[in-house]
Protein backbone atom coordinates (compact mmCIF):
# COMPACT_ATOMS: atom_id res chain seq x y z
CA UNK A 1 0.00 0.00 0.00
CA UNK A 2 2.73 2.45 1.05
CA UNK A 3 6.22 1.84 -0.13
CA UNK A 4 9.36 3.82 0.72
CA UNK A 5 12.51 2.91 -1.13
CA UNK A 6 15.86 4.25 -0.14
CA UNK A 7 14.46 7.60 0.89
CA UNK A 8 16.95 10.32 1.77
CA UNK A 9 16.07 13.71 3.21
CA UNK A 10 17.65 16.68 4.91
CA UNK A 11 16.84 19.77 6.94
CA UNK A 12 18.62 22.47 5.01
CA UNK A 13 22.23 21.38 4.86
CA UNK A 14 21.90 18.71 7.53
CA UNK A 15 21.07 15.33 6.05
CA UNK A 16 18.98 13.25 8.40
CA UNK A 17 17.66 10.33 6.35
CA UNK A 18 20.23 8.23 4.56
CA UNK A 19 18.15 5.48 3.02
CA UNK A 20 14.86 4.50 4.59
CA UNK A 21 12.95 1.62 3.06
CA UNK A 22 9.56 0.45 4.27
CA UNK A 23 6.76 -1.58 2.78
CA UNK A 24 3.30 -1.51 4.30
CA UNK A 25 0.90 -4.22 3.25
CA UNK A 26 -2.77 -3.38 3.15
CA UNK A 27 -4.47 -4.21 6.43
CA UNK A 28 -1.22 -4.77 8.28
CA UNK A 29 0.34 -3.02 11.25
CA UNK A 30 3.93 -1.94 10.80
CA UNK A 31 6.05 -0.43 13.56
CA UNK A 32 8.97 1.89 13.24
CA UNK A 33 11.49 1.68 16.04
CA UNK A 34 14.71 3.35 16.94
CA UNK A 35 16.38 5.40 19.59
CA UNK A 36 15.79 9.13 20.00
CA UNK A 37 16.87 11.21 17.06
CA UNK A 38 17.26 8.41 14.56
CA UNK A 39 14.85 9.89 12.04
CA UNK A 40 11.51 8.27 12.74
CA UNK A 41 9.57 11.50 12.83
CA UNK A 42 11.49 12.79 9.86
CA UNK A 43 10.42 9.74 7.89
CA UNK A 44 6.82 10.55 8.68
CA UNK A 45 7.32 14.19 7.73
CA UNK A 46 8.81 13.09 4.46
CA UNK A 47 5.83 10.89 3.66
CA UNK A 48 3.61 13.95 4.07
CA UNK A 49 5.90 16.13 2.00
CA UNK A 50 6.68 18.35 4.98
CA UNK A 51 10.33 17.59 4.56
CA UNK A 52 11.48 17.24 0.98
CA UNK A 53 12.82 13.89 -0.05
CA UNK A 54 16.10 14.41 -1.89
CA UNK A 55 16.28 10.88 -3.17
CA UNK A 56 14.46 7.55 -3.31
CA UNK A 57 10.80 6.96 -3.95
CA UNK A 58 7.57 7.03 -1.96
CA UNK A 59 4.47 5.49 -3.47
CA UNK A 60 0.97 5.09 -2.09
CA UNK A 61 -1.31 2.64 -3.81
CA UNK A 62 1.06 2.67 -6.73
CA UNK A 63 1.26 6.44 -7.19
CA UNK A 64 4.25 8.55 -6.29
CA UNK A 65 3.85 11.00 -3.40
CA UNK A 66 7.04 12.87 -4.08
CA UNK A 67 6.56 16.58 -4.78
CA UNK A 68 2.87 16.38 -4.02
CA UNK A 69 1.17 19.02 -1.89
CA UNK A 70 0.69 17.96 1.71
CA UNK A 71 -3.07 18.28 1.64
CA UNK A 72 -3.29 16.25 -1.55
CA UNK A 73 -1.29 13.47 0.06
CA UNK A 74 -3.58 13.52 3.07
CA UNK A 75 -6.66 13.48 0.85
CA UNK A 76 -5.58 10.14 -0.59
CA UNK A 77 -6.43 8.65 2.76
CA UNK A 78 -3.40 9.01 5.01
CA UNK A 79 -3.94 10.41 8.48
CA UNK A 80 -1.39 11.41 11.09
CA UNK A 81 -1.32 11.52 14.87
CA UNK A 82 1.72 13.72 15.23
CA UNK A 83 4.43 13.81 17.80
CA UNK A 84 3.51 16.38 20.43
CA UNK A 85 -0.21 16.03 19.63
CA UNK A 86 -0.67 19.36 17.88
CA UNK A 87 -4.35 19.61 18.66
CA UNK A 88 -5.89 22.95 17.70
CA UNK A 89 -5.77 24.73 21.05
CA UNK A 90 -8.33 27.40 20.24
CA UNK A 91 -10.97 24.91 19.17
CA UNK A 92 -13.00 22.87 21.59
CA UNK A 93 -12.97 19.09 21.58
CA UNK A 94 -15.88 18.60 19.24
CA UNK A 95 -14.62 21.29 16.87
CA UNK A 96 -11.24 19.60 16.74
CA UNK A 97 -12.94 16.45 15.60
CA UNK A 98 -15.29 18.08 13.14
CA UNK A 99 -13.07 20.75 11.59
CA UNK A 100 -10.97 18.49 9.41
CA UNK A 101 -13.35 15.57 9.21
CA UNK A 102 -13.79 14.06 5.80
CA UNK A 103 -17.17 12.54 6.45
CA UNK A 104 -19.76 14.34 4.36
CA UNK A 105 -23.12 15.28 5.78
CA UNK A 106 -23.91 16.44 9.29
CA UNK A 107 -25.61 13.21 10.31
CA UNK A 108 -22.75 11.03 9.15
CA UNK A 109 -20.30 13.31 10.93
CA UNK A 110 -22.30 13.24 14.13
CA UNK A 111 -22.29 9.48 14.10
CA UNK A 112 -18.54 9.45 13.61
CA UNK A 113 -18.06 11.88 16.51
CA UNK A 114 -20.18 9.65 18.70
CA UNK A 115 -18.01 6.71 17.80
CA UNK A 116 -14.88 8.57 18.83
CA UNK A 117 -16.46 9.70 22.10
CA UNK A 118 -17.38 6.09 22.73
CA UNK A 119 -13.84 5.07 22.12
CA UNK A 120 -12.55 7.76 24.55
CA UNK A 121 -15.24 8.52 27.14
CA UNK A 122 -12.85 10.98 28.81
CA UNK A 123 -13.23 13.24 25.78
CA UNK A 124 -17.01 13.17 26.06
CA UNK A 125 -16.73 14.75 29.50
CA UNK A 126 -14.55 17.53 28.10
CA UNK A 127 -16.47 18.03 24.86
CA UNK A 128 -16.79 21.82 25.17
CA UNK A 129 -13.35 22.52 26.66
CA UNK A 130 -10.75 24.27 24.59
CA UNK A 131 -8.33 21.56 23.72
CA UNK A 132 -5.40 23.72 24.74
CA UNK A 133 -6.53 23.24 28.34
CA UNK A 134 -6.76 19.47 28.23
CA UNK A 135 -4.25 17.33 30.06
CA UNK A 136 -1.57 15.73 27.95
CA UNK A 137 -3.29 12.39 27.81
CA UNK A 138 -6.60 13.90 26.86
CA UNK A 139 -4.90 15.72 24.02
CA UNK A 140 -3.38 12.50 22.74
CA UNK A 141 -6.81 10.86 22.62
CA UNK A 142 -8.14 13.85 20.80
CA UNK A 143 -5.35 13.71 18.24
CA UNK A 144 -6.14 10.09 17.52
CA UNK A 145 -9.83 10.85 17.26
CA UNK A 146 -9.15 13.73 14.91
CA UNK A 147 -7.13 11.47 12.62
CA UNK A 148 -9.85 8.84 12.58
CA UNK A 149 -12.40 11.45 11.61
CA UNK A 150 -10.77 11.71 8.19
CA UNK A 151 -11.80 8.13 7.47
CA UNK A 152 -8.24 7.14 6.58
CA UNK A 153 -7.01 4.09 4.75
CA UNK A 154 -3.63 4.45 6.40
CA UNK A 155 -3.18 5.72 9.95
CA UNK A 156 0.22 6.87 11.11
CA UNK A 157 0.90 7.39 14.81
CA UNK A 158 4.09 9.11 15.89
CA UNK A 159 4.70 8.37 19.58
CA UNK A 160 1.32 6.76 19.97
CA UNK A 161 1.30 6.54 23.77
CA UNK A 162 3.77 9.17 24.93
CA UNK A 163 2.70 10.55 28.27
CA UNK A 164 -0.30 8.31 28.62
CA UNK A 165 -1.31 6.50 31.76
CA UNK A 166 -1.11 2.70 31.65
CA UNK A 167 -4.88 2.23 31.53
CA UNK A 168 -5.20 4.67 28.63
CA UNK A 169 -2.28 3.08 26.86
CA UNK A 170 -4.12 -0.16 27.05
CA UNK A 171 -7.21 1.43 25.60
CA UNK A 172 -5.26 2.85 22.74
CA UNK A 173 -3.65 -0.47 21.94
CA UNK A 174 -7.08 -2.04 22.08
CA UNK A 175 -8.43 0.61 19.76
CA UNK A 176 -5.63 0.04 17.29
CA UNK A 177 -6.26 -3.66 17.43
CA UNK A 178 -9.89 -3.07 16.61
CA UNK A 179 -9.05 -0.77 13.74
CA UNK A 180 -6.68 -3.39 12.43
CA UNK A 181 -9.38 -6.00 12.55
CA UNK A 182 -11.59 -3.63 10.57
CA UNK A 183 -8.94 -3.68 7.86
CA UNK A 184 -7.10 -0.43 8.47
CA UNK A 185 -3.45 -0.15 7.59
CA UNK A 186 -1.39 1.28 10.43
CA UNK A 187 2.15 2.59 10.86
CA UNK A 188 3.02 3.13 14.49
CA UNK A 189 6.00 4.62 16.23
CA UNK A 190 6.32 3.96 19.93
CA UNK A 191 8.79 2.84 22.50
CA UNK A 192 6.92 0.14 24.41
CA UNK A 193 8.07 -3.05 22.77
CA UNK A 194 5.69 -5.51 24.35
CA UNK A 195 2.45 -4.19 22.94
CA UNK A 196 4.13 -3.37 19.65
CA UNK A 197 5.16 -6.98 19.30
CA UNK A 198 1.65 -8.13 20.02
CA UNK A 199 -0.06 -5.81 17.61
CA UNK A 200 2.56 -5.40 14.89
CA UNK A 201 2.92 -7.69 11.92
CA UNK A 202 6.19 -6.29 10.80
CA UNK A 203 8.86 -4.11 12.42
CA UNK A 204 11.59 -1.83 11.14
CA UNK A 205 14.41 -0.28 13.08
CA UNK A 206 16.05 2.98 12.06
CA UNK A 207 19.63 3.67 12.98
CA UNK A 208 21.07 7.03 12.02
CA UNK A 209 18.54 7.60 9.28
CA UNK A 210 18.83 4.17 7.69
CA UNK A 211 16.62 1.11 7.85
CA UNK A 212 18.92 -1.19 9.78
CA UNK A 213 16.63 -4.09 10.39
CA UNK A 214 13.26 -5.38 9.28
CA UNK A 215 11.59 -8.45 10.68
CA UNK A 216 8.74 -10.12 12.54
CA UNK A 217 7.55 -9.95 16.15
CA UNK A 218 9.07 -13.25 17.13
CA UNK A 219 12.58 -12.02 16.38
CA UNK A 220 12.00 -8.78 18.24
CA UNK A 221 10.73 -10.58 21.32
CA UNK A 222 13.94 -12.51 21.64
CA UNK A 223 16.05 -10.47 24.09
CA UNK A 224 19.27 -11.63 22.51
CA UNK A 225 18.36 -10.84 18.91
CA UNK A 226 20.24 -8.48 16.65
CA UNK A 227 17.18 -6.19 16.72
CA UNK A 228 17.42 -5.79 20.48
CA UNK A 229 21.08 -4.89 20.13
CA UNK A 230 20.15 -2.10 17.75
CA UNK A 231 17.64 -0.68 20.21
CA UNK A 232 19.81 -0.90 23.31
CA UNK A 233 22.55 1.43 24.30
Amino acid at each position, binding site marked *: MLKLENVTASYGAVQVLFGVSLTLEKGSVTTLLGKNGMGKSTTVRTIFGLTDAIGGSITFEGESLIHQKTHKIAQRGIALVPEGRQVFPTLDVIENL*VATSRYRGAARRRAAVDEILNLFPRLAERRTSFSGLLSGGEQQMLAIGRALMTDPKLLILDEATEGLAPNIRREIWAALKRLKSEGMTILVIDKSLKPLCRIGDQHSILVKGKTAWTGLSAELEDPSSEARQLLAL
Partner: protein
Amino acid sequence: MFELIAEQLLNGLQYGILLFLIAAGLTLIFGVMDFINLSHGSMFMMGAYFSILAQKLTGNFLVAVLLAGAGVFALGMLIEVLLARRLYARSHLDQVLVTYGLILLANESVSTIWGSVPLYSGLPEILSGHITLPLGIPYPAYRLVVIGAGFTIAIALFLLIQRTRIGMLVRAGATHRTMVSVMGVNIGFLFAAVFALGALLAGLAGALAGPLLSVQPGMGETVLILSFVVVVIGGLGSIKGAFLAAIIVGLLDTMGRAFLRDLLSSIFSPSVASDTGPALASMLVYILMALVLFFRPEGLIPMQKRA
Protein backbone atom coordinates in the same frame (compact mmCIF):
# COMPACT_ATOMS: atom_id res chain seq x y z
CA MET B 1 -33.90 66.47 27.41
CA PHE B 2 -35.20 62.94 27.12
CA GLU B 3 -35.35 63.23 23.36
CA LEU B 4 -31.85 64.65 23.29
CA ILE B 5 -30.53 61.66 25.19
CA ALA B 6 -32.49 59.25 23.03
CA GLU B 7 -31.17 60.82 19.88
CA GLN B 8 -27.60 60.83 21.14
CA LEU B 9 -27.98 57.17 22.08
CA LEU B 10 -29.10 56.51 18.54
CA ASN B 11 -26.10 58.44 17.23
CA GLY B 12 -23.86 56.37 19.45
CA LEU B 13 -25.46 53.16 18.27
CA GLN B 14 -25.08 54.17 14.67
CA TYR B 15 -21.43 55.13 15.19
CA GLY B 16 -20.84 51.86 16.97
CA ILE B 17 -22.33 49.88 14.13
CA LEU B 18 -20.21 51.76 11.66
CA LEU B 19 -17.18 50.88 13.77
CA PHE B 20 -18.26 47.27 13.75
CA LEU B 21 -18.57 47.32 9.97
CA ILE B 22 -15.03 48.59 9.73
CA ALA B 23 -13.73 46.19 12.36
CA ALA B 24 -15.58 43.15 11.03
CA GLY B 25 -12.97 42.34 8.42
CA LEU B 26 -10.29 42.87 11.00
CA THR B 27 -11.80 40.30 13.34
CA LEU B 28 -11.20 37.79 10.55
CA ILE B 29 -7.70 38.78 9.54
CA PHE B 30 -6.37 39.89 12.90
CA GLY B 31 -8.68 38.21 15.39
CA VAL B 32 -9.05 34.82 13.78
CA MET B 33 -6.09 34.44 11.44
CA ASP B 34 -3.77 36.24 13.87
CA PHE B 35 -2.25 38.45 11.19
CA ILE B 36 -1.62 42.08 12.15
CA ASN B 37 -2.88 43.97 9.15
CA LEU B 38 -2.29 47.69 9.48
CA SER B 39 -3.35 48.11 5.87
CA HIS B 40 -6.88 47.19 6.82
CA GLY B 41 -7.62 50.91 6.94
CA SER B 42 -6.29 51.20 3.41
CA MET B 43 -8.68 48.49 2.22
CA PHE B 44 -11.43 50.54 3.82
CA MET B 45 -10.23 53.61 1.96
CA MET B 46 -10.02 51.70 -1.33
CA GLY B 47 -13.60 50.58 -0.82
CA ALA B 48 -14.72 54.19 -0.53
CA TYR B 49 -12.81 55.23 -3.62
CA PHE B 50 -13.88 52.23 -5.68
CA SER B 51 -17.47 52.94 -4.80
CA ILE B 52 -17.19 56.54 -5.98
CA LEU B 53 -15.60 55.33 -9.19
CA ALA B 54 -18.32 52.74 -9.69
CA GLN B 55 -21.03 55.31 -8.96
CA LYS B 56 -19.67 57.45 -11.74
CA LEU B 57 -19.70 54.48 -14.08
CA THR B 58 -22.98 52.86 -13.15
CA GLY B 59 -24.92 55.66 -11.49
CA ASN B 60 -26.38 53.20 -9.02
CA PHE B 61 -25.42 53.38 -5.37
CA LEU B 62 -26.18 49.80 -4.44
CA VAL B 63 -24.39 48.38 -7.46
CA ALA B 64 -21.47 50.67 -6.72
CA VAL B 65 -21.20 49.39 -3.14
CA LEU B 66 -21.19 45.80 -4.32
CA LEU B 67 -18.67 46.51 -7.05
CA ALA B 68 -16.45 48.25 -4.53
CA GLY B 69 -16.61 45.18 -2.32
CA ALA B 70 -15.69 42.97 -5.24
CA GLY B 71 -12.83 45.25 -6.22
CA VAL B 72 -11.34 45.23 -2.75
CA PHE B 73 -11.84 41.45 -2.58
CA ALA B 74 -9.65 41.10 -5.65
CA LEU B 75 -7.13 43.50 -4.16
CA GLY B 76 -7.09 41.50 -0.95
CA MET B 77 -6.51 38.30 -2.89
CA LEU B 78 -3.61 39.92 -4.67
CA ILE B 79 -2.04 41.13 -1.44
CA GLU B 80 -2.47 37.72 0.13
CA VAL B 81 -0.82 35.91 -2.73
CA LEU B 82 2.02 38.39 -3.13
CA LEU B 83 2.74 39.32 0.46
CA ALA B 84 0.62 38.08 3.33
CA ARG B 85 1.16 34.37 2.78
CA ARG B 86 4.88 34.84 3.16
CA LEU B 87 4.32 36.42 6.54
CA TYR B 88 1.93 34.15 8.46
CA ALA B 89 4.79 32.19 9.87
CA ARG B 90 6.83 35.30 10.62
CA SER B 91 6.64 37.46 13.70
CA HIS B 92 3.94 40.04 14.22
CA LEU B 93 6.61 42.67 13.81
CA ASP B 94 7.35 41.75 10.23
CA GLN B 95 3.64 41.89 9.52
CA VAL B 96 3.48 45.35 11.07
CA LEU B 97 6.27 46.68 8.91
CA VAL B 98 5.04 45.22 5.64
CA THR B 99 1.49 46.40 6.12
CA TYR B 100 2.78 49.79 7.24
CA GLY B 101 4.58 49.94 3.91
CA LEU B 102 1.29 49.10 2.22
CA ILE B 103 -0.39 52.05 3.94
CA LEU B 104 2.18 54.43 2.51
CA LEU B 105 1.78 52.93 -0.91
CA ALA B 106 -2.01 52.96 -0.82
CA ASN B 107 -2.30 56.56 0.32
CA GLU B 108 0.13 57.72 -2.26
CA SER B 109 -1.55 55.79 -5.07
CA VAL B 110 -4.93 57.17 -4.13
CA SER B 111 -3.77 60.75 -4.05
CA THR B 112 -1.96 60.29 -7.33
CA ILE B 113 -5.01 58.82 -9.03
CA TRP B 114 -7.84 60.75 -7.41
CA GLY B 115 -6.02 63.74 -5.94
CA SER B 116 -5.96 64.74 -2.31
CA VAL B 117 -9.14 66.77 -2.43
CA PRO B 118 -11.81 64.95 -0.43
CA LEU B 119 -14.40 63.39 -2.67
CA TYR B 120 -18.01 63.00 -1.89
CA SER B 121 -19.76 59.72 -2.30
CA GLY B 122 -23.28 60.53 -3.48
CA LEU B 123 -26.48 58.97 -2.22
CA PRO B 124 -29.64 58.04 -4.08
CA GLU B 125 -32.53 60.48 -3.53
CA ILE B 126 -34.54 58.22 -1.25
CA LEU B 127 -31.66 57.78 1.17
CA SER B 128 -30.43 61.35 1.32
CA GLY B 129 -33.35 62.68 3.32
CA HIS B 130 -34.41 61.94 6.85
CA ILE B 131 -37.09 59.85 8.44
CA THR B 132 -39.11 60.82 11.47
CA LEU B 133 -38.78 58.21 14.16
CA PRO B 134 -41.05 57.71 17.19
CA LEU B 135 -40.71 60.56 19.70
CA GLY B 136 -40.57 62.84 16.70
CA ILE B 137 -36.86 62.40 16.20
CA PRO B 138 -35.84 63.15 12.63
CA TYR B 139 -33.03 60.83 11.64
CA PRO B 140 -31.02 60.62 8.41
CA ALA B 141 -32.41 57.73 6.39
CA TYR B 142 -29.00 56.58 5.26
CA ARG B 143 -27.76 56.17 8.81
CA LEU B 144 -30.62 53.79 9.44
CA VAL B 145 -29.52 51.80 6.39
CA VAL B 146 -26.02 51.58 7.85
CA ILE B 147 -27.43 50.25 11.11
CA GLY B 148 -29.31 47.59 9.17
CA ALA B 149 -26.27 46.61 7.14
CA GLY B 150 -24.19 46.33 10.29
CA PHE B 151 -26.60 43.95 11.95
CA THR B 152 -26.83 41.80 8.84
CA ILE B 153 -23.10 41.48 8.45
CA ALA B 154 -22.67 40.79 12.15
CA ILE B 155 -25.08 37.87 12.00
CA ALA B 156 -23.68 36.45 8.77
CA LEU B 157 -20.15 36.63 10.04
CA PHE B 158 -21.04 35.11 13.37
CA LEU B 159 -22.62 32.16 11.63
CA LEU B 160 -19.67 31.77 9.33
CA ILE B 161 -17.06 31.73 12.05
CA GLN B 162 -18.86 29.96 14.86
CA ARG B 163 -21.15 27.66 12.99
CA THR B 164 -19.34 26.51 9.87
CA ARG B 165 -16.33 24.36 9.42
CA ILE B 166 -14.65 27.16 7.51
CA GLY B 167 -14.52 29.17 10.71
CA MET B 168 -13.11 26.26 12.65
CA LEU B 169 -10.48 25.62 10.02
CA VAL B 170 -9.33 29.21 10.00
CA ARG B 171 -9.08 29.24 13.77
CA ALA B 172 -7.19 25.95 13.62
CA GLY B 173 -4.88 27.23 10.90
CA ALA B 174 -4.04 30.34 12.87
CA THR B 175 -2.19 28.27 15.44
CA HIS B 176 -1.19 25.05 13.66
CA ARG B 177 -0.99 25.81 10.00
CA THR B 178 0.90 22.72 8.83
CA MET B 179 -1.26 20.46 10.91
CA VAL B 180 -4.33 21.65 9.04
CA SER B 181 -2.81 20.71 5.72
CA VAL B 182 -1.60 17.42 7.14
CA MET B 183 -5.27 16.78 7.85
CA GLY B 184 -5.98 17.21 4.14
CA VAL B 185 -7.16 20.81 3.90
CA ASN B 186 -5.81 23.24 1.34
CA ILE B 187 -4.89 25.85 3.89
CA GLY B 188 -3.20 28.11 1.37
CA PHE B 189 -6.38 28.53 -0.57
CA LEU B 190 -8.50 28.81 2.54
CA PHE B 191 -6.37 31.57 4.02
CA ALA B 192 -6.30 33.48 0.76
CA ALA B 193 -10.07 33.31 0.59
CA VAL B 194 -10.56 34.43 4.17
CA PHE B 195 -8.00 37.20 3.85
CA ALA B 196 -9.80 38.43 0.78
CA LEU B 197 -13.10 38.13 2.60
CA GLY B 198 -11.70 40.35 5.34
CA ALA B 199 -10.67 42.82 2.68
CA LEU B 200 -14.09 42.60 1.11
CA LEU B 201 -15.70 43.51 4.42
CA ALA B 202 -13.35 46.45 4.79
CA GLY B 203 -14.20 47.50 1.26
CA LEU B 204 -17.92 47.27 1.90
CA ALA B 205 -17.49 49.27 5.07
CA GLY B 206 -15.58 51.90 3.14
CA ALA B 207 -18.22 52.08 0.45
CA LEU B 208 -20.96 52.38 3.07
CA ALA B 209 -19.07 54.85 5.25
CA GLY B 210 -18.08 56.99 2.28
CA PRO B 211 -21.17 59.19 2.49
CA LEU B 212 -20.66 59.65 6.24
CA LEU B 213 -16.95 60.31 6.39
CA SER B 214 -14.66 62.33 4.24
CA VAL B 215 -13.33 60.27 1.34
CA GLN B 216 -9.69 61.31 1.21
CA PRO B 217 -6.22 59.81 1.31
CA GLY B 218 -5.38 58.72 4.84
CA MET B 219 -9.03 58.29 5.83
CA GLY B 220 -8.16 54.71 6.74
CA GLU B 221 -5.74 55.56 9.51
CA THR B 222 -8.22 57.46 11.62
CA VAL B 223 -10.44 54.40 11.78
CA LEU B 224 -7.65 51.82 11.83
CA ILE B 225 -6.66 52.19 15.43
CA LEU B 226 -10.27 52.32 16.55
CA SER B 227 -10.99 49.06 14.76
CA PHE B 228 -8.05 47.43 16.48
CA VAL B 229 -9.37 48.77 19.76
CA VAL B 230 -12.78 47.28 19.03
CA VAL B 231 -11.37 43.87 18.11
CA VAL B 232 -9.14 43.73 21.15
CA ILE B 233 -11.73 44.96 23.65
CA GLY B 234 -14.20 42.47 22.23
CA GLY B 235 -11.81 39.57 22.56
CA LEU B 236 -9.69 38.33 19.68
CA GLY B 237 -11.60 36.28 17.17
CA SER B 238 -14.97 36.85 18.74
CA ILE B 239 -17.56 38.33 16.42
CA LYS B 240 -19.99 38.76 19.27
CA GLY B 241 -17.32 40.47 21.29
CA ALA B 242 -16.37 42.81 18.48
CA PHE B 243 -19.99 43.73 17.97
CA LEU B 244 -20.52 44.39 21.64
CA ALA B 245 -17.29 46.35 21.91
CA ALA B 246 -18.09 48.42 18.84
CA ILE B 247 -21.45 49.43 20.27
CA ILE B 248 -19.93 50.26 23.65
CA VAL B 249 -17.17 52.30 22.05
CA GLY B 250 -19.65 54.08 19.80
CA LEU B 251 -21.95 54.94 22.69
CA LEU B 252 -19.12 55.94 25.00
CA ASP B 253 -17.51 58.18 22.44
CA THR B 254 -20.73 59.86 21.38
CA MET B 255 -22.10 60.30 24.87
CA GLY B 256 -18.74 61.57 26.03
CA ARG B 257 -18.62 64.17 23.30
CA ALA B 258 -22.21 65.15 23.87
CA PHE B 259 -22.50 65.33 27.62
CA LEU B 260 -19.12 65.26 29.31
CA ARG B 261 -18.54 68.99 29.01
CA ASP B 262 -21.89 69.84 30.55
CA LEU B 263 -21.37 67.23 33.21
CA LEU B 264 -17.98 68.61 34.13
CA SER B 265 -19.15 72.19 34.11
CA SER B 266 -21.59 71.34 36.86
CA ILE B 267 -18.58 70.39 38.97
CA PHE B 268 -15.76 72.60 37.77
CA SER B 269 -15.60 76.09 36.34
CA PRO B 270 -16.84 76.35 32.75
CA SER B 271 -13.36 77.11 31.42
CA VAL B 272 -11.89 74.04 33.08
CA ALA B 273 -14.80 72.02 31.78
CA SER B 274 -14.49 73.21 28.22
CA ASP B 275 -10.77 72.47 28.34
CA THR B 276 -10.89 69.03 29.93
CA GLY B 277 -14.27 67.93 28.60
CA PRO B 278 -13.26 67.29 24.98
CA ALA B 279 -9.87 65.99 26.12
CA LEU B 280 -11.47 63.46 28.38
CA ALA B 281 -14.02 62.59 25.71
CA SER B 282 -11.33 61.62 23.21
CA MET B 283 -9.51 59.64 25.87
CA LEU B 284 -12.56 57.71 27.04
CA VAL B 285 -12.19 54.96 24.46
CA TYR B 286 -8.57 54.36 25.34
CA ILE B 287 -9.26 54.51 29.04
CA LEU B 288 -11.93 51.90 28.46
CA MET B 289 -9.50 49.73 26.56
CA ALA B 290 -6.84 50.02 29.24
CA LEU B 291 -9.38 49.12 31.92
CA VAL B 292 -10.78 46.18 29.99
CA LEU B 293 -7.34 44.77 29.29
CA PHE B 294 -6.31 45.34 32.87
CA PHE B 295 -9.21 43.48 34.37
CA ARG B 296 -10.01 41.08 31.53
CA PRO B 297 -6.83 40.75 29.53
CA GLU B 298 -8.53 38.53 26.99
CA GLY B 299 -11.28 40.98 26.18
CA LEU B 300 -14.98 41.06 26.94
CA ILE B 301 -15.81 37.75 25.26
CA PRO B 302 -12.61 35.80 25.04
CA MET B 303 -12.62 33.22 22.28
CA GLN B 304 -9.09 32.05 22.15
CA LYS B 305 -7.53 30.58 25.17
CA ARG B 306 -4.04 29.50 24.45
CA ALA B 307 -2.60 26.52 26.20
